[in-house]
């Protein structure tokens, strides 16, 4: 019985909050199909008014970077301060930069 249940695939859940622009990853759940995953995501992750839009995607459809390649992937950007727009003065009346 438990083997049967364990075979439900894992889904990742993304919620777009009311005032945000992007869907944000909030967690995961098990479901037998896409529609069930969407309903379960609604019940598990938006019951406290967290969002206005939901995405669910099978976890095995996501290609992720590996911790082993963390250095070649991410370390090189750590010392490139010139990539930040900090070398010119920002006028005080220009917000959201």
């Amino acid at each position: 019985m438990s083997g049967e249940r364990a075979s439900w695939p894992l889904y990742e859940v993304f919620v777009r909050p009311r005032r945000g622009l992007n869907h944000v990853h909030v967690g995961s759940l098990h479901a037998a199909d896409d529609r069930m995953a969407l309903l379960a995501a609604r019940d598990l992750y938006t019951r406290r008014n967290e969002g206005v839009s939901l995405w669910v995607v099978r976890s095995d459809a996501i290609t992720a970077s590996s911790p082993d390649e963390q250095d070649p992937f991410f370390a090189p950007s750590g010392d490139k301060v010139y990539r930040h727009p900090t070398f010119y003065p920002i006028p005080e009346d220009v917000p959201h930069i």
Partner: protein
Amino acid sequence: MTDDHVYLSLSDAAGEPDGEARWAYGTGFADPLLGVDAAPPSGIDPADLAAYCLMLGDDALVLSQRLIQWVTRAPELEEEVALANLGLDLLGQARRLLTRAGQLDGTGRNEDELAYWRDEFDYRNVRLVELENGDFAQCVARLLMFATAREELYRRLADHADPVLAAVAALGVKELAYHREYAQSWVLRLGDGTEHSRRRMQDALDALWPWLDELFTPHEVELRLGVDPLQLREPVLDRLAGVLGVATLSVPEAAPRAYVNGRAGRHGVHTEELGPLLAELQVVARAHPGATW
């Protein structure tokens, strides 16, 4: 038990400097009854309206309690949270309807007094919602039947002359549309599933179907208020037949459950399954009268 302070604290959070960041969940909750005129509407007998609100409120309260009983017993964690959510939606409807009944019936009882201090024969819910849970197929069969009928009813009540009842119904339509979709998805999945799941789903429908007709059987109060539930019968049966057809299930042909001397749930005549449910619902409140937490 009042929500005022909760709504206020959540709404205020948005105005604070770190308001949005302070809460992990969304802000901007709103009380759907805020600003709705609670004065008894003219031209309607307040006693009848109170009795009607009690019927609908008791339906919601008792089914809510049945759904909450699934917690720790559901087949999957995801379904357990879903059922608890549906139960809490119904509990919210019950609170507003019982509060309304207490405002109108002249006794000044609040929602807690009505929920915890009435005995079985004073409950006015239909018998369908009090029946023991049975298996998961029975759970979703009852949900589908009840939600389809109640959504259809609330759709009509949304422009009722009583602004409070209309507001409760308008919000309830959205909740019940989801309850119906949830139940429908499981009836389809189990009905059009394996041979075993199909048989269990059909058994569940056969067991519960005879109790459905009570939802369409008018009580004298409903007739006086002009909200004859018999009008719901055809659209609801059509809709249910549509779902069962897609699910490859057959519409049960069993005769409706008999009334006892013309009386049933709406008159306080219940099955023996309501008593234990109410005992569990009421035991803490009765052991510690007036306690707050």
